[in-house]
């Protein structure tokens, strides 16, 4: 509940601002245009459009209360282990899931979505959403004995397990904090040559994220309102054209100092792309209501601008795009029942609206969204929350998804089975690399390129997981 923002008028005017209105901006080098020709990466040879959208749940999503054991036997195990953070079984009736084709899971598990996810249930039962069970960071497949082994040369562990920042980075870039190339960015590297605007290949609507940073592909940042124009160029107010021109020169000039120069590079990119992006977005207005219940949903706002950019794909001349959006606040050490509910409701609303928007634009088979998170959490409770874990459950949503059934291996509902490392911290049975490889193949990456994107993929069964 913060007060009114100072500059509510800025966003309004930004939306009205359009490309090419200022003469002196035209002299800036068409930086982004040059990137495409500079890219030497293999083109994906795409003649259609495809977009991958990573939906990152920052903080480590609680898998136990996302897909909840619903059959009576497993539910009672769940309720016993979860104590004060368990749902009532009756509250799960409306979101209990029935696979499209009968499927037998571990211990005959049946799941329900968290009660706040009615729209995700509809997507599942309509075959547009696939859950991938117990996926997480691994370098090689591991059994519990191998996990406990001291032979780390033979059974290496992902570095810095259970640590937020490092496992976020592992999910996004297969390396701990400090990595500068994400696997979404590597997909972008392959797509650069096919896009007129190389800079619009990898886009984050959620601030800096290594996921969308490639070897060559840069990450472009967009705000929910679109690209942001430097207002002083068009409305000098108390300034003057001379002040505006000096400002433009100052913030875009080449500098000898590396950090100063990077600021100038960013400013040039910001200015140049604002005209291109807002120009293309001007005609894209979606009927889909992303916030059916009036409240703040930052994930829905981000997915809405992603949908509008996808809507502008022809104007922008892009064939392959990788997007990053996120929702914060999943580190539910306490008050899990109330706070997780709120976030799951936002996720439900945002993902379902986004899918609806792709249907509205007729691109539902060309757009695949998938979730990721720092890690799963413990199944054991700490009174009113859960702690950092490892494997977790994730979703893939889209018209090309073979949904309505589960992928991966369902974990036992337990705190001492062989598929977890204590307190219900899941030992992943599917690796991020396998998850990513399946999405990458759909995106158009040939098998021969896969090892360059996912260095550990050779350690796993190379077959795609089949969810898309």
């Amino acid at each position, binding site marked *: 509940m*913060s007060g009114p923002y100072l500059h509510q008028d800025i966003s309004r005017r930004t939306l009205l601002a359009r490309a090419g209105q200022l003469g002196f901006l035209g002299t800036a080098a068409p930086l982004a245009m040059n990137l495409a020709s500079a890219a030497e990466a293999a083109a994906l040879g795409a003649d259609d459009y495809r977009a991958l959208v990573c939906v990152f749940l920052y903080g480590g999503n609680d898998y136990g209360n996302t897909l909840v054991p619903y059959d009576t036997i497993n539910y009672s195990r769940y309720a016993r282990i979860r104590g004060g953070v368990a749902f009532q079984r009756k509250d799960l009736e409306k979101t209990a899931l029935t696979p499209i084709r009968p499927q037998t899971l571990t211990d005959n598990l049946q799941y329900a979505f968290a009660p706040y996810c009615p729209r995700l249930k509809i997507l599942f039962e309509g075959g547009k959403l696939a859950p991938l069970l117990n996926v997480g960071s691994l370098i090689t497949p591991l059994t519990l004995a191998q996990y406990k082994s001291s032979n780390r040369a033979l059974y290496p562990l992902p570095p810095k397990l259970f640590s937020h920042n490092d496992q976020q980075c592992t999910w996004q870039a297969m390396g701990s904090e400090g990595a500068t190339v994400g696997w979404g960015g590597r997909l972008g590297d392959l797509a650069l040559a096919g896009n007129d605007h190389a800079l619009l290949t990898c886009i984050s609507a959620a601030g800096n994220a290594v996921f969308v940073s490639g070897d060559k592909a840069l990450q472009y940042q967009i705000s929910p309102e679109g690209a942001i124009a430097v207002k002083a160029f068009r409305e000098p107010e108390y300034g003057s054209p001379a*002040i505006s021109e000096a*400002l433009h020169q100052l913030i875009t000039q080449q500098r000898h100092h590396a950090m100063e*120069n990077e600021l100038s590079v960013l400013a040039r990119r910001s200015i140049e792309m604002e005209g291109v992006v807002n120009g293309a977005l001007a005609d894209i207005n979606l009927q889909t209501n992303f916030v059916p219940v009036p409240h703040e949903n930052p994930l829905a706002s981000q997915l809405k601008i992603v949908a509008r950019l996808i809507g502008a794909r022809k104007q922008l001349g892009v064939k392959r795009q990788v997007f990053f959006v996120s929702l914060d606040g999943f580190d539910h050490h306490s008050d899990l029942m109330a706070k997780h509910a709120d976030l799951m409701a936002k996720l439900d609303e945002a993902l379902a609206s986004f899918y609806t928007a792709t249907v509205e634009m007729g691109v539902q088979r060309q757009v695949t969204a998938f979730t990721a998170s720092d890690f799963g959490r413990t199944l054991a409770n700490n009174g009113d929350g859960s702690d*950092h874990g490892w494997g977790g459950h994730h979703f893939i949503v889209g018209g090309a998804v073979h949904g309505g059934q589960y992928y991966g291996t369902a974990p036992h509902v337990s705190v001492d089975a062989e598929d977890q490392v204590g307190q219900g911290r899941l030992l992943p049975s599917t690796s991020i690399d396998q998850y990513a490889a399946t999405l990458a193949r759909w995106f158009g990456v040939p098998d021969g390129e896969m090892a360059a994107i996912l260095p550990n993929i050779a350690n796993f069964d190379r077959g795609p997981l089949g969810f898309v």
Partner: protein
Amino acid sequence: MAVLVDSRPAMKASIAQGKISEAEAARFLLRAQFSAPDADIAFVRARGFSAWLDEQYKIPRAQTGVDWLTEHHHDAITKDAHYFWPTAGDYMIWNQMLAQPGEMRLRAAYALSQFFVISLNPIDGFWPPYIMAAWWDLLVDGAFNNFRDLLERVTLNAGMGMYLNTKGNLKEDKASGREPDENYAREVMQLFTIGLRMLNPNGTEKKDANGRPIDTYSQDDIMNLAHVFTGYDHDFDRVKHINVDWQNYPVITHEFCVDPMKLDPSKHSNLAVNFCGASIPANTPGKDALKIALDTLFHHPNVGPFFGRQMIQRLVTSNPSPAYVARVAAAFDDNGQGVRGDLKAVWRAVLTDPEALAAHDPADRFAGKLREPVLRLTSWARTVGLHCASGEWQIHNLSRSDNSLGQSPLRSPSVFNFFRPGFVPAHTSIAEANLVAPEFQLQNETSTAGYINFLQWMVRWGYGDVKPTYDPMREFAHDPDRVVDWLNLHLAAGQLSPETTKLIATALASKMVTQESPDEHKLDLLASASLLVLSAPEYLVQK
């Protein structure tokens, strides 16, 4: 907005005699605090860096955040449930950042707030502003004390208890499967004391016999340590319960925000704890267990280089040499009188290190750090003067990067601060050189434009009734060269090149402001000058 007292003897000392130039003094001051008032520049030039630090260490802290809130009636129990609103938490911290005297202590506290992180964002329940004010006051009070004392206060702080869940943390219960909450146990090690990897005294990672890094702790250490932090909750002893007719439960008063959390031995785990080589026997009383745990962390050899390197990054440079880190770590380990953890010694080591004070080499393409948005605003405000007619300082959360500053104090998105000490901006020559630039984590296409748009309004019209006065500059506002030179010294320590100052002065001259021009025109010029300087890459990178 100079804050030093005029009567200090050094003020009378003649300036320009010492070896320290005006620009060097300003450069030092813009690291040690937010701004470089003329009085401080003169003091540093006359008496030296270390003497200036000695003076700052003697200045008692100014009004506390808690007292300010109460003076401004933010403790009022009103029907609109003001007691649940976070808003005054932002007013409180902006008042502290922009208006309270004792800049160096506040600057140090702000650096500490980026190491020991809590954020107003998720703080809910009664009196969020008081939770944040008590937290801020703790950092301001502790800024010139000992790290060990600060660590204990941080651990038991009411807001930290909410943020990392020590509040309400219960001992294990085998019957129900309940385990202690691990959040604080993990982050107190990973972020507040020792970090993830064993370090050499110079901050580089130690390696095992096979050349691999060595973890400082395991998940097992965390699960053990978590028991130490069980049994705590807010202390309601001094709290009054006020019945009101608009809700069916009483409103509680805000003393629990200020008082350290209280231990309930019946909820505290009595299991033996073994972590990081320390052993706490079963049935050790909670208070003693806490002492052993915090002593263990405090005496870990990692703390000096881990903490010291990050303080260098906050105040001086993103990429200190290992030798510089080692010198600061040595000061942490021993202040020269055998005391470990003396923060005064740490600030002195950080700010007066030969590497920090060496003249900037224009050939060095990687020197310094990007100024973070909060520091840009604070530095400008304290330099040109800011006046709030109502005294309420109603500046809100400025976190949004598309239409606001892009950062707000005590509003970090997570316990990992606004940016990570190891952040590498991809596709830059900084990355190619294997260097880091933490503040670049906030810099992107959106924030670049959003920041300039925010400035365009702020530097001319202010924010609500908080307005720039430009008092120190009005008398020469008709002289563009002098305006630019003055801003160059006071905001950028003379680091704007002649080309840049000429570019700005020429643009300002086109406004044709004369001595006789109306005040509005002079303010237009001074605002334009501020906008240009604060947007210039040469200013934005503090070298």
